């Protein structure tokens, strides 16, 4: 028992409990009162029974048997009421706490840098944010209270036994101490098995969600069989661990059966001995036996709580691990950005996705400076580092060398919220939520009004598209961009940016999926959007870059050329001029 408590208090669990239960103190107190009251009833109930039986077997005049029976019935009714109340309170407390934890975990994951998300599937994270937390529900609602309440019940029963006969009291107290000592030790041995089990199930669900999302690719390339193959492999790994985890449970369970029998044997032997010494009556022998059996319930409760706790522990460890996963980004500053259009400076920037030690540089010694209000076009083959450039600008990653500044302010000193408010990006991958058109555009920000949305859609020529849906902004979009063409999805992503009114706009191959007609429409819209703003456009079609002010040519992470577009275009030896020439050998438009 004491062991269990030490184990409990010495861990971060108490902190977790305190953190998520503090806000609902009243409910927790109510829950505690309800539980303690029903425990008290459990101690009274047998007394009523005993009174009844004693009087029934040896009728005395003036005994109030019907009252005793009625008392028994009313206790049963009150217990029912208390059970309901404690369930309601317990569930509410648990859900409040776990929901808060879910949100905190989701927030923390969102806060982590992209390298964290690159190594984990969304399904795996769902399992960790929801699956693990769900197993914690009982821990929050009942764990401490049940342990405490049942310990009180246990002590109460032992006290009654001491009162009946000290020898019975002593032997059963020793028994209880011994039993808990052994069982808590067993619990600890089982913990790593459960951690392993939960780890594997998280991987399994991660596997599922990833492959279900890629059904189109798998089916058309005849690889459904491959998924099933992976599924079988996963099952084969899972079964032995499942066996081990359940084995640990069985050991615990059968130990409690053995202990219970031991308890009964002790009680009955002590009873037989005292009876043969004529120290007690047969009624007392029965009472000792009865109370020993009564020990069963609190002991079983405490054990099942501890065993649930053991499973929860695995989850707690994983939750804790997730919560303490640090962002690889150095801590952010809190300087505001100047309020007008932002100039961009890259000063000897170097970056590698493999952090320690950095090698295989994605960007190397990159320096350029874009004045505020100008538009830069970035050209380069795929894999030349164009997208990395934008990721650094949004501070998804921090460069290992050099400095990036926005409006003369070094990026690492800018507050992240401020940065993201002022920088907008459209990439070629458009993520849609299974939510209304409105929520997909505002990204669940209720502060953005319908009028603004209409305006943005109008500017992008999407009003007709919206009108073709009778439910308008309330139209539900499906996950996996079902029902939307890739081009339409990209136009919606443009509208998202439009609504956020950023000072620096980055378009990362954003028009790649559009046909020329639509692209022209977007281009007009883009020019409008770029007015009074700084812009960076990454494109592989040079026609997209007709209206930019500067050109940056990247090759294998290095700057090949940088300068005003006009200058580079006129300079026939420049790489940009050669690219232009090449693209003009094919007709410029459809």
């Amino acid at each position: 028992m004491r062991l269990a408590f030490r184990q409990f208090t010495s861990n971060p669990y108490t902190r977790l409990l305190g953190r998520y239960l503090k806000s609902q103190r009243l409910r927790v107190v109510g829950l505690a009162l309800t539980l303690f009251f029903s425990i008290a009833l459990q101690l009274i109930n047998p007394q009523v029974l005993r009174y009844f039986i004693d009087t029934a077997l040896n009728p005395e005049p003036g005994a109030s048997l019907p009252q005793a029976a009625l008392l028994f019935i009313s206790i049963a009714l009150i217990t029912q009421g208390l059970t309901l109340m404690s369930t309601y309170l317990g569930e509410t407390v648990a859900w409040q706490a776990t929901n808060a934890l879910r949100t905190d975990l989701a927030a923390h994951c969102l806060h982590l840098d992209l390298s964290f998300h690159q190594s984990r599937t969304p399904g795996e994270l769902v399992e960790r944010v929801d699956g693990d937390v769900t197993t914690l529900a009982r821990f929050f609602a009942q764990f401490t209270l049940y342990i405490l309440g049942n310990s009180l019940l246990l002590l109460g029963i032992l006290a009654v036994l001491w009162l009946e006969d000290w020898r019975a009291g002593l032997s059963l107290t020793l028994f209880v101490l011994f039993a808990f000592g052994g069982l808590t030790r067993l619990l600890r041995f089982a913990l790593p098995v459960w951690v392993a089990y939960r780890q594997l199930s998280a991987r399994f669900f991660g596997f599922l969600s990833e492959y279900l999302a890629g059904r189109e690719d798998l089916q058309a390339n005849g690889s459904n069989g491959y998924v099933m193959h992976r599924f079988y492999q996963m099952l084969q790994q899972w079964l032995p661990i499942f066996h081990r985890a359940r084995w640990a449970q069985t050991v615990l369970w059968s130990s409690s059966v053995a202990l219970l029998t031991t308890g009964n044997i002790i009680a009955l032997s002590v009873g037989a001995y005292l009876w043969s010494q004529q120290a007690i009556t047969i009624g007392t022998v029965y009472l000792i036996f009865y109370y020993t059996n009564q020990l069963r319930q609190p002991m079983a409760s405490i054990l099942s709580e501890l065993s649930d706790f053991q499973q929860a522990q695995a989850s707690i460890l994983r939750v804790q691990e997730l919560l303490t996963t640090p962002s690889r980004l150095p801590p952010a500053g809190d300087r505001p950005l100047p309020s007008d259009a932002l100039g961009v400076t890259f000063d000897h920037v170097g970056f590698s996705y493999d952090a320690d030690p950095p090698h295989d540089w994605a960007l190397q010694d990159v320096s350029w400076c874009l004045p505020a209000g100008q538009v830069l076009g970035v050209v380069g083959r795929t894999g030349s580092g164009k997208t990395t450039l934008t990721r650094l600008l949004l501070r998804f990653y921090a460069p290992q060398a050099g400095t990036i500044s926005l409006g003369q302010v070094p990026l690492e000193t800018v507050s992240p919220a401020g940065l993201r408010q002022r920088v907008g990006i459209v990439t070629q991958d458009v993520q849609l939520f299974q939510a209304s058109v409105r929520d997909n555009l505002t990204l669940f920000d209720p502060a953005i009004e319908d009028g603004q949305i209409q305006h943005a859609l109008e500017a992008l020529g999407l009003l007709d598209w919206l009108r073709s849906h009778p439910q308008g902004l309330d139209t539900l979009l499906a996950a996996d961009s079902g029902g939307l063409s890739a081009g339409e999805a990209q136009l919606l992503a443009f509208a998202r940016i439009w609504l956020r009114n950023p000072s620096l706009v980055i378009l990362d191959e954003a028009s790649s999926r559009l046909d020329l007609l639509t692209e022209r429409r977007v281009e007009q819209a883009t020019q409008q959007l770029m007015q009074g703003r700084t812009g960076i456009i990454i494109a592989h079609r040079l026609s997209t870059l007709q209206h930019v002010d500067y050109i940056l040519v990247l090759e294998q992470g290095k700057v090949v050329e940088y300068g005003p577009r006009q200058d580079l275009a006129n300079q026939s030896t420049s790489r940009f001029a050669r690219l232009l020439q090449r693209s003009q050998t094919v007709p410029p438009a459809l």
Partner: protein
Amino acid sequence: MTLPTPLPLWPLLWRLICYTPKLALVDAGLWLLISGVFPAIPGLIIQGYFDALTETAPLALSPLAFLGLLVATSVGEIVALFAGQWVRTQYRFNLRSLLRHNLLDQLLQQPGAQPLSIAEGPQRQTISPGEAISYFREDPELIEQTIVKTADLIGYGLFALGAIGLLLRLNPQITLMVFLPLAVISAAVQQAQQKIKQYRRASRRATQAVTGFLGEIFTAVQVLKATGTETAVLNHLNHLNGQRQQQMVKDRLLITVLNSGFENLTNLGIGFILLLMATGRTSATSGLSVGDFALFIYYLALVATAFRAFGQYLTWLKQTEVSFERLRALHRPDSLTEHRSSPAAAAFALVAHQPLYLAGLWGRQPPLPPLQPPHPEAPSHFKELAVVGLSYHYPHASRGIEAISFSLRRGSLTVITGPVGSGKTTLLRVLLGLLPRQTGTIYWNGQPVEHPATFFCPPRSAYTPQVPHLFSDTLRNNLLLELEKSDAALGEALRLSVFAQDVGAMPMGLATLVGTRGVRLSGGQRQRAAAARMLVRQPELLIFDDLSSALDVETEQSLWEGLFATGQATAAGRPTCLITSNRPDVLRRADRIIVLNEGRIEAMGRFDELPSLS
């Protein structure tokens, strides 16, 4: 069909039980012992003990002998427990894995480009892959639980019958009172049945909304970070969390009312017995010995437990029905491979017996079958593909394709072009069976194709979608997906997809981990990886959806040049390609251009025959 047809729950469960008949039988036997026989014995021993102490026993055994019997019973129980749990673990794992297997199999058979969806009345509601997880997680485990607990329940039933029989001999009137609560329980569960199912459905749906949204959040991390909308999204999550809490608390409260009701009703029953005894209407009570009395109380408590288990089982049955309904709702009647039209057949597909290749109880692990290509037999030599009157319309939207007819010959390059939303991708998807066609016929060498989804696979055809999906694994595994190909073949595919240089520059080469959805690769690299994945399968017909969208002009040109140069060198001739593109230089290469507009073919011909293009 607006009302869900009732499910044949028992036949479904029975079919599952029959999956591992031996395990089921042994499990049932052991758990009958554990829940039905072992709990009954200590009561009798204790009765004997007390009667021996007070010397009213018919048998002349000493009290200590009874203690010995108690120890023996306990040892027996523990042995049975170990064996029972061991067998049950195996049994449970088989059951849940079979359900998960069939579910996964079923989802993979659905048209791949159609988002996963569930039937809600006559309509279908799309769900995200994250939401689909909740179907794999809880529902199979609940069904499994109900099945394995059936044996326990029978054990409890046997015990209750035996106990009641014994008690009847001791005192019939009192014992009969015990049956009263049972009747009340059954009536209560019957009454609550609708509510149990309704609450369960609502709470499952609310859970699914949360897991689905979480999945979407983690898929769209980059967008959320870039737009700084984390807070707004978390607020929405909180809102969904709140709804789930409300539904879950309701669900749990109802279940608690019923469960604790079972227990307390029995207590009430005892109370009434006491009242009966107290008012002196039964004189029989005076004849009870201390041993009889101990037995009475001991058994009553256990009978109460049995009743409670019975009630809980009834609730589980209702919840299981909901789980089966949910799993069945994932099934699409228009699933292309088989026309399982009846809803009952859809449910039975969930419990169909399939090999799982699990190790047996004694640890023998059967080897996995070698991975077979979908069409191991040599394909018909491709000559011509013809499409006649193909139509498809997205639900709730006017978009789609209408009456598309065209044909293409071996060795030709066919380009589908047209503005955004004109149906280019849709056309490819419908042709490949990734979306279910609504009308039209597809002919391969003049033979109609019944099931395009299973027909259009390597070695006949392969496909690179517009936004290819890569999986968090090594590059090699992503390209091969366990296909057995020589390094030379793989190298050739890399060269043709203009990806070899990139791979060469990666320090880990083909062993590079590409990250979730391939995020560690650039957009263009992902697309060329997908192209290599397609080329290494050496299909007769190559289908690219807008390959150029993530490639720069130079890379794309070298890709086409490489592709057509090989064709001339080999006996197979030029590869046959069907692609979508809006790039002029691609259009000029085409043998035939199909111009789509608003889902219909507007024009067809070569580049110079189509003045609208230039």
